[in-house]
C-alpha cells in the first residue's frame, strides 16, 4: 500500500483549477446540476474539496498543520466518492482520491482517526466479520428461505456469488434475487456462506488498512479453497473494493463481475429472456464504486521523471471503464421500461451522499446530498430511482422518507426478477 508521502507529486501538482468541484465541461448541461463535490457544494470553503484535502495533506506532512478534532471531522466528511479524482484525471496525471484515502490512513496510523463510529465498526468486524456486529452465523441466513434456492451451496465452483454485509444482513431480497437470476441464466455458482467475511471496503475507505487487509485474506482463502475464478457481486461497494482494493494488498487472480454484466451477457447469448413488461419510467443512479471507481487497480512502482513522465508507464484509472452500460442496457431491454438520464451520470454521477462512512458519522450531511440527488432524479420525470448498492439504497430511502410521494427506490435485481 502506498503511504501519504508517496503522493507528494499529486499534492505539489494541484494548481487550484477547481475541476475537482465541477462537472466536466463536455458533460455540463446548464446552470443546474453543475457541481460534483458533495462536501464543497454544502460547505463552500475550498478546504472541503479534493483540492483542499490535497493542501491539508501536504501541510500535515510538512508539519505545518497540527491535528485537531475539527481537522479529523473535515477529512472524514468527504464521501470518498472519487468525483474529484475522475474529473482531475480528465486533464491531469494525479491521484486525488488515493491521496485522500492515504490521508485517512495516516490519521489512523497517528492515532487521530478514524471517527468513533468507524472504530466501533472495526471492533465489531474483528468479532463478527460484518460491519453491523451481528452474529456471523446469520450471515447466510438469507439463503435459507424461501426454500428452493438450490444453488446456495458451498461446493466448489468456478463462479462465486459474494453477497456482502449490507446485502446479507439488511437487504436479503437482493441476495435472493441475485441467486434467482444466476439460476435463470443457468450459471452454476457457489456462495461462501459462513466463510464470507466483510469485503473490507468500509475499513479501507475509512483508513483502517490493516483491519481491511485481514478481511481480504480471509475472503481470498475461502475463494481459493472453492476453486473460484469469477466473483459475482450485486453490491457496488463490494464490487469496487474487490477490484480496487484487493490488488493493492494481495495477489488477486480473480475476475470480478457485477450482476448487471452477467444479465447482459445472458441476454446477449439468449440464455435469459424477459417475459413480463414493467410499466415504469426510471433513472439509473451510478454508484461510485460500480462506476468511476470500479476499474481494476494495477499496482505501479516506478519513478516520476522530468515533466511528468512515469517510468515505467502507469495504468491510470480514469473512470472510463466503469460499469455504466450493462445496467442501462438490461433495464432498457425490459418491455414497458423507459430509462431517462440524470444530468450528472456515469463518470460524472453525483454521490448519494452516504459514501465513505458519511452516513454513519454525519447523517444530516448525507441527507443534504441525498436530497440534491433525489431532486435531480425527480427532474428527469422518472417515477423510480434504480441502483445497485445497498448503501446508496439506505441513504436514498432515508431521503425519500422525508419527501413522501417524490419517487420510489428499487434495486436493480428486483426489476430483473420481476421481468423474468
Amino acid at each position, binding site marked *: 500500500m502506498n503511504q501519504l508521502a508517496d503522493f507528494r507529486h499529486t499534492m505539489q501538482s494541484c494548481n487550484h483549477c477547481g475541476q475537482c468541484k465541477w462537472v466536466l465541461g463536455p458533460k*455540463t448541461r446548464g*446552470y443546474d446540476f453543475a457541481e460534483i463535490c458533495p462536501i464543497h457544494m454544502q460547505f463552500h470553503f475550498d478546504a472541503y474539496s479534493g483540492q483542499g484535502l490535497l493542501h491539508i495533506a501536504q501541510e500535515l506532512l510538512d508539519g505545518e498543520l497540527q491535528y485537531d478534532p475539527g481537522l479529523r471531522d473535515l477529512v472524514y466528511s468527504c464521501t470518498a466518492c472519487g468525483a474529484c479524482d475522475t474529473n482531475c484525471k480528465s486533464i491531469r496525471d494525479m491521484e486525488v482520491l488515493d491521496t485522500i484515502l492515504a490521508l485517512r490512513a495516516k490519521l489512523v496510523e497517528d492515532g487521530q482517526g478514524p471517527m468513533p463510529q468507524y472504530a466501533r465498526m472495526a471492533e465489531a468486524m474483528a468479532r463478527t466479520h460484518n460491519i453491523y456486529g451481528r452474529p456471523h452465523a446469520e450471515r447466510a441466513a438469507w439463503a435459507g428461505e424461501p426454500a428452493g434456492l438450490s444453488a446456495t451451496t458451498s461446493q466448489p465452483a468456478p463462479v462465486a456469488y459474494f453477497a456482502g454485509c449490507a446485502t446479507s444482513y439488511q437487504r436479503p431480497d437482493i441476495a435472493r434475487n441475485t441467486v434467482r437470476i444466476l439460476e435463470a441464466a443457468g450459471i452454476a455458482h457457489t456462495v461462501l456462506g459462513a466463510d464470507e467475511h466483510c469485503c473490507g471496503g468500509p475499513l479501507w475507505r475509512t483508513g483502517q488498512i490493516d483491519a481491511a487487509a485481514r478481511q481480504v485474506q480471509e475472503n481470498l482463502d475461502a475463494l481459493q479453497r472453492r476453486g473460484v475464478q469469477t466473483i459475482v457481486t450485486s453490491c457496488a461497494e463490494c464490487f469496487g473494493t474487490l477490484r480496487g482494493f484487493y490488488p493493492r494488498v494481495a495477489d488477486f487472480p480473480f475476475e470480478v463481475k457485477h450482476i448487471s454484466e452477467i444479465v447482459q451477457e445472458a441476454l446477449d447469448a439468449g440464455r435469459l429472456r424477459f417475459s413480463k413488461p414493467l410499466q415504469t419510467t426510471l433513472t439509473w443512479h451510478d454508484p461510485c464504486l460500480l462506476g468511476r471507481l470500479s476499474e481494476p487497480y494495477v499496482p505501479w512502482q516506478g519513478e516520476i521523471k522530468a515533466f511528468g513522465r512515469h517510468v515505467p508507464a502507469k495504468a491510470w484509472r480514469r473512470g472510463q471503464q466503469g460499469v455504466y452500460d450493462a445496467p442501462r442496457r438490461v433495464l432498457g431491454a425490459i418491455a414497458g421500461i423507459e430509462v431517462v438520464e440524470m444530468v450528472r451520470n456515469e463518470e460524472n454521477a453525483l454521490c448519494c451522499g452516504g459514501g465513505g462512512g458519511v452516513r454513519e458519522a454525519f447523517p444530516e450531511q448525507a441527507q443534504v446530498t441525498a436530497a440534491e440527488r433525489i431532486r435531480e432524479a425527480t427532474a428527469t420525470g422518472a417515477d423510480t430511482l434504480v441502483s445497485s448498492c445497498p448503501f446508496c439504497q439506505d441513504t436514498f430511502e432515508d431521503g425519500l422518507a422525508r419527501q413522501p410521494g417524490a419517487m420510489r427506490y428499487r434495486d436493480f435485481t428486483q426489476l430483473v426478477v420481476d421481468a423474468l
Partner: protein
Amino acid sequence: MPLSRDVYAELEQVVGPRHISDKPWILAGVRAAQPSSPMKPPSPEAVLLPGSAAEIQQIVRICNRHGIRYIATISSLIGFAYPSGPGTIILQLKRMNQLVEVNAQDRYAVIEPGVRHGQLRTELMKHGLTYPVAAVGPGGSVLANFACSSGDNHCQHGASRTNRYLLGLEWVTPEGELVRVGSLANDAGWFCADGPGPSLRGIIKGFVGQWSGMGVVTRIAIGLDAWRGPPELPTQGRSPSYRMRLDPACHKTFVFKFPTLEQARDAMIAIGEAEIAQAVLKYFNASAALLATESANEFWELWDSGLFQRELARPLYVFLSAWTHEELEYEECVLRDIIAEFGGADVDERIQRIYSDNMDFYILVGALQRVLRLGGGWAPCKLSGDSIGHMFEVGKAIPEFITPFIEQGRILDAPDNWQIIPLEYGHSAHIELLFLYDRNQPDWGKVPMDFMRASMQADIRNGHHGTMPLRTVAASQAIGALFSNAHMWANRVKDAFDPQRVSNPF
C-alpha cells in the same frame, strides 16, 4: 496583522458563524503554493463566505475601519487570488451564485460572481446564445473574468475580448459604497456599460481588470453573441476521451501550415478582412500535443516523434461555423483562396484527423488545463494585445530570449509554443507564450522569474507591447513607459478610491 477576536466577532456578526473561519485546516485550503512557483503565499487571517452585496459592504467597512486587507475571489485559480501580505482576509463569493437574468431579446445575461463558465455557457446555448468563454475549465467564474481579469477565448476572432462585453454592473467600492454603473445607474436596465459623462467601467476593468484591487464587483451584465450550434453539447464518449462534433454541414475545422510567419500573419489578416470564420489562431504546438494526448507519457511519445514541431511551427487553425451549409461552402471557398494566396498548405493528415474529429471540443469547451499535465512547471508570458502585425513582431522576437533557456535545458524545447488570437475580425490581437519547466531541477523556482524578466527586457529593447503590465511594482515600473505609464494613473485612481489601500493592494 492578525485579526483580533473582536474584529472576528464583528465579521461573524455579518456573515454568520457558518460562513467564516480562521481554523488552520480551513486556511490550509487557500494558502498552498502554486505548482509553478516556489513561493508559498502568506496565510489569510480568515476566509469569509458573504451572501450578498449588503454583507460585502459591511465587511469592507469593517476592513477600512480596522485597516484589514481583503481579497474577493471565486475559484482562486490565479496568483492574484492569494494574499500578498499578512493581515489579509479572503472573501470567497461562491454563495453569490445567481444567474439573475437571461435577456434573449436584448442579448445580455446578468450574473453574480459564483456563476461558472460551465453553467452559463450551457444555459445560454438553450437560448441560442453564447459569449467568449475563458479557457479555464468549467469552474472558472464568469464575473471574475469579465470584471476583474481577462482570460481569453479561442473564438475571439469572431467575437472580442471580455472588456468589450461588460455592460451594467453593481460594485462595492473599496470603501464600501454600493455603486451601480452604466445604464443601471439610471434605472434603465443592464444593457449598457456607459451613461452620460465619464465612464466608471474603465476604473474597474480597462483592457485587463484590477484583480480585485478595486473593491468588489457583485453583479454584472455581459453582452451575448449568437450561438450557431445545438442547444446541448453533443458530447460522446467518457472522460478523458470525449468527442464533440457539431453538425458537419455547418461547422468545420482546418489546420494549415505556412512557410513563414509573415505569410501566416497575412493570411490571418485576410481572413479577418473577409469576415469569415468563428476562430482563427496561430496556435501553440506543445500545448496542442498535450490536448491531443491523455497522459504525460502519451504526450512524450507524440512530442518525441517531432511531428508537431515540424508541422505546427507556423500554423493557422481555422474554425468555420455557419448557419447553413451554403454559407459554410462559401466560407470554405474564401478560406481556401486565402490560404493558397499566402502559401499555406494542409498539415499532415494525422494532425488534421485529430482536429477534424474533435476540434469542436477543443475550440468550444477547451481543455487547456491539460497543459498542466506535465507536472506543474508552466507559466504564461507576454499576454498583451495590439494589432495583428505588432503581435507577430513580438512573436518573431521570441527566439532572442528563449534560445538560451532552451540551450541550458531550463525549459522544454518548444520555442513555437505561443499563440496569437485575433479579435473582432482582425481589429486587434492578443499574444501568449507558454513555457514549461521541470520542477525536478534544483533551481526550478528561478526559471519563471528569470524567463519573464528576459521576455520583458526583450520587449523594452524592441519597443514591443508584448508584456502585459502586471500589478507588481517592479514590473509596472519597468514596462510602464511602453504603456503610457498607465501604472501611475492606476496608482492615482487607487489612492482616490482606496486611500487605506485595503482592497487587495500590491
